[in-house]
């Protein structure tokens, strides 16, 4: 009896994913617990382990790299080596919904277009489609026409950066309903296509949130009333990746949360001095902590005193989280991801710096697992490195707060009646106004200001 190898659900909301490649070859023996293939779910690619054993048999119609696959879809078969008696069918891989990782939703700096694969990825990638190739007209065709690697990638290597073309977008652009999108009527989809509207983003007014023709037209009317976003209908349509779609969905959820943003200037002279001294320190073993690491540590030390900022809106209650796990927003070629640094208060600055460096590398190599991104209680997003001084972070639900960190700039400050040169930094705190009010948020921000101005305790 051959056993079906099916597409598992990675995280609770995934209905389809992008197949990234086999880790075993046709005819190769697969043992229980062996890593069998790589699948990109809603947020990250994951190596999927086999729960059964057998010889791998790939059907002619087996998906290739970049193909969109549906949860439950049969990918291949495992055949017994010899005719085994009473082989039970494989239990479907399961994942507890409560473990489902959440993904940050925040608009990072625009990173568009294919970028070269980063160093450290050990896989032969399909050639990137030349820039002139129209990408979106027939995404399925485009994907199918990609040359596939002649041999399945060996061992555990993972594909790294992918061209935006790769796959998961096929469904939406072709008018097919991605499972994560709202229900929609065929007519609504047809009309949306003719009007150039992305129906998956239209708020449906029908039963069960079904998007209907009138909803599509209404969304267009709203868009028309708003300041013109883009004048030109001509241009390249870039299909949505699973990650981009998740980000969009998360942002849409966030937009429904009543938030407020407080902005506060802090004196960062001491902080910059501290960082300089750490950088020049001779007994430094790990990586030099960056400003983000310093802020993670400072915030982590403060949060136990401000439980409402380390909290969640949990339907009919507020959940004051037991641990402090801080997510850091990382920009990658594929889009924004938020790996989580766990149990920050108990960790040293050096430990945090090492962990964050590792997380960023894994993120940029597209190696984050859903678990890496789940369980955050607070998020920090730092655009200072990109020169941004002040911005409004978007909440990462269900977390109650997110801290935006701007660039540190020299400034002239009146100090004891004299003008002196100092370093300044702007902190922006966006918080869920249902969870806490403005004053406690302001008190947190002020406490953070004081901590930044007296940063030495991060070394404790």
């Amino acid at each position, binding site marked *: 009896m051959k056993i079906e190898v099916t597409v598992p659900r990675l995280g609770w909301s995934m209905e389809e994913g992008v197949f990234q490649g086999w880790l075993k070859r046709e005819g190769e023996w697969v043992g229980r617990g062996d890593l069998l293939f790589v699948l990109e779910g809603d947020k990250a690619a994951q190596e999927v382990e086999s729960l059964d054993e057998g010889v791998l048999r790939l059907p002619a119609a087996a998906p290739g790299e970049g193909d969109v696959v549906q949860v439950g879809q049969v990918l291949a078969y495992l055949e017994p080596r010899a005719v085994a008696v009473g082989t039970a069918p494989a239990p479907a891989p399961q994942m507890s919904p409560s473990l489902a990782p959440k993904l940050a939703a925040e608009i990072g700096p625009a990173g568009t277009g294919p970028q070269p694969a980063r160093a450290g990825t050990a896989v032969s990638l399909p050639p990137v489609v030349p820039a002139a190739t129209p990408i979106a007209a027939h995404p399925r065709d485009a994907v199918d026409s990609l040359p596939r690697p002649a041999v399945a990638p060996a061992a555990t290597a993972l594909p790294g950066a992918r061209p935006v073309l790769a796959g998961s977008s096929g469904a939406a652009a072709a008018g097919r309903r991605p499972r994560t999108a709202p229900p929609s*009527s*065929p*007519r*609504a*989809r*047809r009309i949306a296509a003719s009007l150039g509207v992305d129906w998956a983003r239209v708020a449906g007014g*029908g*039963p069960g949130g*079904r998007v*209907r*023709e*009138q909803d599509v037209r209404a969304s267009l009317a709203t868009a028309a009333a708003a300041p013109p976003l883009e004048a030109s209908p001509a241009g390249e349509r870039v299909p949505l990746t699973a990650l981009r779609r998740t980000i969009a969905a998360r942002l849409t959820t966030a937009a429904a949360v009543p938030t407020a943003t407080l902005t506060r200037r802090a004196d960062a002279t001491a902080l910059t001095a501290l960082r300089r001294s750490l950088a020049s320190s001779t007994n430094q073993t790990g990586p030099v902590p960056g400003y983000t690491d310093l802020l993670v540590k400072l915030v982590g030390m403060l949060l136990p005193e401000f439980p409402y900022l380390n909290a969640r809106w949990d339907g009919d209650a507020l959940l004051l989280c037991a641990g402090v796990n801080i997510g850091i927003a990382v920009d990658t070629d594929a889009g924004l991801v938020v790996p989580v640094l766990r149990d920050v208060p108990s960790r040293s600055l050096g430990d945090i710096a090492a962990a964050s460096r590792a997380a960023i590398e894994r993120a940029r190599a597209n190696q984050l697992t859903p678990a890496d991104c789940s369980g955050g209680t607070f998020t920090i997003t730092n655009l200072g490195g990109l020169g941004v001084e002040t911005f409004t972070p978007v909440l990462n639900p269900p977390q109650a707060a997110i801290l935006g960190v701007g660039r540190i700039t020299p400034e002239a400050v009146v100090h004891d009646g004299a003008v002196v040169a100092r370093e300044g930094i702007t902190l922006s705190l966006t918080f869920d106004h249902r969870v806490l009010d403005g004053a406690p948020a302001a008190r947190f921000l002020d406490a953070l200001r004081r901590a930044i101005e007296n940063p030495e305790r991060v070394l404790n």
Partner: protein
Amino acid sequence: MPAALREGSELSQTTTAAESWLALFDRMLVIRLCEEQLARSHQRGLIHGACHTYVGEEAIATGVCAHLRTDDVVFSTHRGHGHALAKGLPPRELIAELYGRETGCSRGRGGSMHIFAPEIGMMGTSGIVGPCILQAAGAGYASRVLGLDRVAVAFFGDGAVNNGAFHEGLNMAGLWKLPVLFVCENNQFATEVPFNASAANTDVASRGASYGMPGLALDGNDVLGISSAAAEAVARARAGEGPTLLECRTYRTRAHAEGMGDFTYRTRDEVDEWRKRCPIARLRERIVAAGLATDEDLRAREASIAALIAEAETFAAASRPPDPATATTHVYSAVPAAPASPLRHHPPGPGTREITYGRATWEALSEEMARHPEIFVMGEGIGVRGGNFRTTEGLFQKYGALRLRDTPISERGFVGLAGGAAMTGARPVVDFMFADFIMDSIGEVVNQIAKMQYMSSGRLKMPVLLRGCIGIGHSAATHHSGNYYPLYAHFPGLRVLVPSTPYDAKGLMKRALNCDDPVLFLEHRELLNTRGPVPDEEYEIEFGRAVVTREGADLTIVAIAQMARRALEAAEQLAGEGISIEVVDPRTVSPLDTETILRSVHKTGRLLVVDEAYGPFGFASEIAAHAAGAAFDDLDAPVRRLFGAFSPTPYSPSLEQAVVPALADIVQAARQLARE
């Protein structure tokens, strides 16, 4: 080759006894040798379907057909090769048909049990026992309506004489003195059941008395005896003296069908005994004894007939199979009959006179009866009385009993008769009062009338109009209220018209009376007294043309008959709520104008189908399926159906109302769907 044996030749014009005996001998031999060839071919797998041979019974077809003209018509059974050959079918066309070739007499559409050669009066063999009796009666009726001295013959087995078709057919033929020969080939078995095990009165000939006609018992293996009896019967029929029943007692000496076992129900000895009474051997002795020919002469004739059959087989085997692309041609008449009046499709404007639905169909019938002398009407109480629903009021006085024929309560009988009449040039209208009664004749409608044009590869026409009331209301209860259109629309070959307005009713009935296809004209009883505009001038409405009875933007309702009217009321009511409804009335269920429906759905994005008939496999389901398939990208909400409760129709008004979609139901469903 003997002079009389040119293919397709007639035997009836022989003058001298010598010529006529030799002609009978030749014809019987053609049948025998052809059947033996077919048995051989069957064994070799060259015949794809059933094959019932006529071996041992050749004298009957030969003796009877010797007295028929080409324009006389023969209706036959499953054991019909001999009838076809005796009527003049060339053996090559018979063999080719059984081989399934395009040169076969039915162009490969029929095989052994559907042998058609209407050009020589061979009106078909049949896979159903019985209908040929009614069709022959119908052909006889058509002869009278058309004023022809043409004679019809039904050949049938002993198995058919216990069938209703026999009793109903003979009764009507005797009653109306129709020019028909009813020839029973009593071979003593129906398949394997002995006749005395299935008939209370085994004297078939005696049954003629029950139906007012002479009944003769004949030796079925004596061709000369049969020939002389047939000569008399044909002469009587031609002279207008009515039908005759001939019971020819005989025996088939091969199995019921090729490939079947033969000795579970009869013995070899019995079969051998009957072989000794071979009709061909008997005639041969008579010819030699009378000095009309020598044994040697006859052997020479035999050799040339054998050569003819061999050549026929070669021809059949060399013929091509029919082109698969033609598999569905001839379901309906290929060239639709031209309308007699201009075709119109949209109701007239204001200022037009208003008449009732009932009057509109009466006008249609009356105008077309004046135009076509071939039209005659049959039904119970449609003569002097003018019809239960005044459908034929005053027409009897104008056209007389032959064209306004009151019938016995023999629905199966007169529908089968109508089919035979339509096959032979008349244009029958059957008025049922209530369409429920058509169910008693369903086999004739579905197996004969609907399939005849196809089986005859388009060489026969089937202009039969079957009309009756449908619909729930007035506590008619369950035997006077059925809605049967989904059933009829399921079958290829029928046209099913269900008009909802006087205008549509008149135009469609006039079209039906001018076309060559069988039509079910179903009139909702609750509509008969409704009034509407109908122009004075004549017009016809083409089948398969829906009408948009109200334009709207938000929702399409498709409905027919009474529900088409109710849908309009619902649309009017909902207009007050700002919901704009488009109402489409297909008017004909088969053919169904899906194009107009889909166009409307394209416009509105929402479809509600309202129907009074049952839901499963029904009108609403069919339209919903079309929309879900062809209008998928137009649908802004799922298709909804409203239909009658899955129950017989109850009597009490409170129960009756509960099984039909009410105005409030339609309003509610449409409102919900529009807002969904």
